[in-house]
């Protein structure tokens, strides 16, 4: 049987056998459908990507207010637009290493303060101009200068100076940072001609697809850019179709109007996965659904009370009921196994009514209601999650009260303003960036008001430490500090749940973001 299968597989690789024919013959040999499907996929992959076809993506997260200016990207559709038309200097690969893009190589000085990017030569923008180090410099300036409104402004802060020199682009930092290349992989930092200084929203980049139609909130159509520098980008055209309504997105996928969709609701994912034409891809990521307390505001300034609340949440139940199993439990720190240098030995905090009651008693709280503000804008199912939390907290005698807030304006009026609320973090490629964004004393987004000098020192020490083993030990210590002293209640990490048509091939698991970290239009193809 094996010989025959091998022969058939080689025919697939040679393009002589279609999927239907292969499956039919495999069935005749008594091979199970799942097995045959795997063999076929492997064989087809061995044949290498096929060119052509028009890819359509049904995406949640687009509004008619969206701009093509990379500095403004904050939701899925603009993010995917950027992935199609633009390139960053480097990219974080699925295995967490740095993959070169517009930079051929990156080199850091021994103290980790000066970083030099050797730029790829002969790269063409969609407007016909050739990319130079000046374009790179201006792009980075636009995201970091004084009047920047870029979403990447926060991560550009540590830069002391930048310079363009022939085929090199050099960044000098105030403090050493071993993770700088990861920061440069941020999706906002798309290299634009003249840095996008003159027309940031023109949608011109060096990516595999160039902009054809831009209708914010409706669709964005891109066609293949013939002079693109890399081997990526196998489709003739790629279209982002904005379908914010979850049911409509699923229907469009089922009826073949789109080839893939993001944000499949956990409650329909199982049903959808049974369809023979689709595969539901659940990818563990770094995003986490959280409840955050301000460590400097009463009553949350008492660590005993914070611990009481941390013990009072039933993580398993939340993962099962809110995420329907499409996720994993959290450990009251923003880091999980998807991060490099994660310490697996940190003990998991267990749900315990007794311990919660004990810590609550120690805190000496006067028994007045503890108000938790929630809205589903924080994360899907936040209101349900809060209700479950309330029940278990009440069993421990903690008077948790839920206050529902409107979705509209949640991120400006409630999050980072109110002392106790639901929130969401998308995660960062490396631990340093996650901690620096939200747990450093001076961070703008320190939404738990976690201000511990010792922690800050550890963070800087880890940055300057180039030995991975030592860094891992420092990060482990920092994780424990957040877990035991911080204001973060992290019950769960959510998976990215995408659905992809079986007509496509080339899917790989990538924890960096939804839809293969946005690389689907580059790395996938029609089988």
């Amino acid at each position, binding site marked *: 049987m094996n010989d025959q299968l091998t022969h058939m597989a080689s025919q697939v690789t040679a393009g002589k056998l279609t999927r239907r024919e292969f499956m039919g013959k495999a069935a005749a040999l008594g091979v199970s459908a799942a097995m045959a499907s795997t063999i076929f996929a492997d064989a087809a992959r061995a044949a290498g990507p096929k060119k052509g076809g028009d890819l359509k993506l049904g995406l949640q997260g687009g509004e*008619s207010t969206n701009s093509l200016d990379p500095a403004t990207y904050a939701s899925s559709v603009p993010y995917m637009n950027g992935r199609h038309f633009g390139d960053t200097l480097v990219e974080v690969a699925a295995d967490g290493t740095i993959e070169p893009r517009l930079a051929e190589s990156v080199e850091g000085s021994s103290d980790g303060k000066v970083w030099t990017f050797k730029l790829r030569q002969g790269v063409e923008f969609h407007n016909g101009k050739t990319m130079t180090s000046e374009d790179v410099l201006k792009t980075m300036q636009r995201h970091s200068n004084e009047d920047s*409104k870029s979403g990447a402004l926060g991560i550009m802060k540590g830069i002391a100076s930048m310079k363009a020199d022939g085929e090199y682009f050099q960044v000098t930092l105030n403090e050493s940072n071993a993770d700088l290349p990861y920061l440069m992989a941020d999706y906002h930092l798309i290299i634009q001609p003249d840095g996008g200084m003159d027309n940031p929203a023109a949608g011109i980049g060096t990516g595999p697809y160039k902009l054809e*139609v831009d209708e914010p*909130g409706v669709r964005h159509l891109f066609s293949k850019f013939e002079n693109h520098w890399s081997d990526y980008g196998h489709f003739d055209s790629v279209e982002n179709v904005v379908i914010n309504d979850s049911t*409509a997105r699923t*229907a469009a996928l089922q009826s073949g109007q789109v080839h893939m969709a993001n944000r499949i609701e956990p409650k329909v994912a199982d049903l959808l996965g049974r369809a023979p034409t689709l595969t539901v891809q659940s990818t563990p990521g770094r995003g986490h659904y959280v409840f955050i307390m301000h460590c400097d505001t009463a009553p949350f300034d008492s660590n005993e009370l914070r611990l009481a609340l941390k013990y009072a949440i039933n993580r398993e139940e939340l993962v099962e009921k809110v995420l329907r199993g499409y996720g994993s439990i959290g450990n009251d720190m923003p880091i999980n196994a998807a991060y490099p240098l994660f310490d697996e030995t940190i003990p998991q905090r267990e749900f315990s009514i007794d311990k919660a009651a004990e810590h609550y008693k120690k805190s000496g709280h006067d028994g007045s209601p503890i108000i938790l503000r929630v809205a589903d804008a924080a994360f899907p199912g936040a209101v349900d999650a809060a209700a479950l939390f309330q029940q278990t907290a009440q069993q421990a005698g903690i008077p948790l009260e839920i206050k529902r807030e409107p979705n509209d*304006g949640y991120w*400006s009026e409630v999050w980072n303003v109110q002392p106790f609320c639901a929130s*969401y973090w998308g995660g960062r490629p490396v631990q340093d960036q996650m901690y620096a964004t939200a747990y450093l004393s001076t961070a703008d987004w320190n939404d738990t008001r976690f201000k511990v000098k010792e922690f800050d020192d550890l963070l800087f020490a880890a940055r300057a430490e180039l030995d991975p083993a030592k860094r891992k030990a420092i990060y482990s210590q920092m994780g424990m500090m957040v877990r035991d002293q911080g204001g973060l209640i992290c019950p769960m990490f959510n998976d990215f749940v995408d659905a992809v048509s079986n007509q496509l091939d080339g899917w790989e698991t990538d924890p960096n973001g939804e839809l293969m970290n946005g690389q689907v239009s580059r790395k996938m193809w029609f089988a």
Partner: protein
Amino acid sequence: MHPIIKLVSQRIALGLLLLFGASALIFGLTEALPGDAAQAVLGQSATPEALANLREEMGLNRLALTRYAEWLTGILHGDLGTSLTNGLDIAESVGSRLGNTLFLAFWAALVSVPLAIFLGLLAVRYRNRWPDKLISAVTLTTISIPEFLIGYVLVYFVAVKLGMFSPLAMINDSMSFWQKLNAIALPVIVLTMVVLAHMMRMTRAAILNVMQSAYVETAELKGLSNFKVIWRHAFPNAIAPIVNVVMLNLAYLVVGVVVVEVVFVYPGMGQYLVDHVTKRDVPVVLACGVIFAAIYIGLNMVADIVAILANPRLRHPK
């Protein structure tokens, strides 16, 4: 001056005044919402610096009254301005959205209005017999079910199971006329179901009311057929209330279909407006609000004028 011309010009002047009032109200309410465009755009990633820079760029640091006055001057010169959030020309983007909305409303009206009136007449003809009861039962059922539910049910059975129409009603300029019609088939069916009952019931009630009159009895005694009595004698005298309810429903088809737009992913004005309210994009909200108000006021004015023209006593006031 002819009294009718006088009446129409009075109405138009009043309408413009109303529009001005509406724009002031919309501006005031949007300003009163918590947060501003800069905060809404940056969302969770807002830092104080980025916020300040964006506010400066959007011109949000100036007085609200100054911004409103500028907007008003602009619109009097036919300039709707540019969107705060994506910098696109408002007239252009609203134009295509409005075109789509009117396209959908036109086809929904073309199907639903004649159908509603015909069903109304039929119900009167077979008053209190089974056709009347059946028509009422079916139309009242469809109006009572929320439109998104009808939409989802149609999408599931017609589009996904039968594969007859597209579940997405996304139309764009590169589509042919027939492709567009095919795309909007499902939303047109849903909208028809939603507005049918209201117009049908009003037609039925208005004509039944007239049917009690002496002249209808005369017509019957003349030996005219039942349907002819209704069509020739009763219907013209019942036209005013019918036009009124038809206009209200037309206005609804233009300004009130955001739910249907979302279900079918239709690129109309409703979703466009909601997106911009969420982002506090005041110039766009104002532009959409004024257009909606103009349509509403305009259609109501037409209803009033038709009602007057249809009534000889109002047409020739003593």
